[in-house]
């Protein structure tokens, strides 16, 4: 019975294009006990870690998702005739981190944080659905307010926004890495 449950869950994850949440799995498999489901998921993930498989199940964007293993990247690219995957520009990354750490946030606030006008970068991020509009701020001009989206989490392989290091941890990283970073920039 337990094996069957493992298989069922595996098929649910397989068929789902978006990260499949635990809640969703539970809501579908009403005939099983919650603890059974959780246990089966754990066992299922273990089989993928230990097994000689090209694919794996990962926690991403708050749910479970199939992905290929990173070491097979070059072969997949060959199959799909892709030389490299497009990366975000550094302006886009900077804008995203400003939003991620200061959300909910307005365009003016983002621009102030970065010291440059960020409207076009923000527009691209919206198009890529990495950020979303969540409403308007009750302040003069009622500016739109933005947050990072669910796609943001999956894109960066985060399970929740809390997976990002806290501002305190960032400061710590900065203190530790101050010297190497200097050289980094000078060399660039």
């Amino acid at each position, binding site marked *: 019975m337990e094996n069957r449950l493992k298989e069922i869950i595996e098929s649910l994850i397989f068929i789902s294009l978006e990260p499949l949440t635990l809640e969703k799995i539970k809501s579908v498999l009403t005939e099983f006990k919650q603890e059974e489901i959780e246990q089966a998921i754990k066992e299922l993930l273990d089989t993928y870690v230990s097994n000689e498989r090209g694919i794996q199940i990962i926690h991403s964007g708050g749910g479970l998702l199939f*992905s290929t293993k*990173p070491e097979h*990247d070059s072969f997949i690219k060959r199959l799909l005739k892709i030389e490299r995957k*497009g990366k975000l520009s*550094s302006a886009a*990354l900077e804008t995203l981190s400003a939003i991620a750490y200061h959300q909910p946030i307005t365009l003016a606030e983002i621009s102030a944080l970065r010291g*440059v006008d960020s409207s076009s970068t923000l527009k691209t991020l919206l198009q890529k659905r990495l950020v979303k509009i969540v409403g308007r701020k009750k302040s003069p001009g009622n500016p739109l307010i933005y947050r990072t989206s669910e796609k943001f989490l999956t894109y960066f392989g985060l399970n929740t926004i809390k997976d990002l290091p806290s501002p305190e941890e960032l400061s710590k990283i900065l203190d530790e890495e101050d010297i190497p970073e200097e050289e980094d920039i000078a060399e*660039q």
Partner: protein
Amino acid sequence: MDASTDYQVKLEVFQGPLDLLLFLIRKKKIDIHDIPIATVTREYLKYLNQKERINLDREAEFLLIAALLIYIKSQMLLPREKPLEDEKDPRQILVNRLLDYQRIKAASSLLREKEEEELLKWKRSFLPHLLQEDAMDYIEISLFDLGESFFVLMKKKEREGIKTIKGKEYSLEEKMKEILAFLEANEFLDFLDYFSQAESFEEALVSFLGLLELIKARIVIALQESHFQPIKVWLRRKERLTNN
């Protein structure tokens, strides 16, 4: 290492005035809390004098920083009855902004690492990547670029001096269908290649109008890897992807 000579080439390094200031502070290996305005300003001027060519955007950012520093300096020079409170001290304000900014920079390099890790893992929802319109580094080109390319090409054909005998009428609708059929069969359409194959100016022109119609209807999209690179036309696939 003299970084000041090569940062003109490496514009990617800088995002804005804060970035620039941070860079100068780092280069001087100065504690961020103790910004020696005179030194940093001198550094700017030295750099400006060295330069033969001017990048207007960059110089505008320099100016903004210089103005900011001069403002701080002037605030410091003013005699005051009471010493300034911490949060009104212009230096403190600047330091706070820089610290905020530094954190964002740190976070964004962290996100870059994550991005690189994730790009190695292929997920089903991201397939097929190449056909997605938001291939991230491509530049969507404007109709003007497209028009310009077209006319350059036609000029070139004209110079070849090939005479054609008229007799065929081209319909816009037919051409649009042809382009779509081509895109269904091939991954993308190379703009220059496609139009060089046209038999006559009329045919090319009708095809071009058809292409513009398709772009306007948001059925296809014209992209370029970077400026001066070949223009490629792709089908927009978003709807199809999400429906699957």
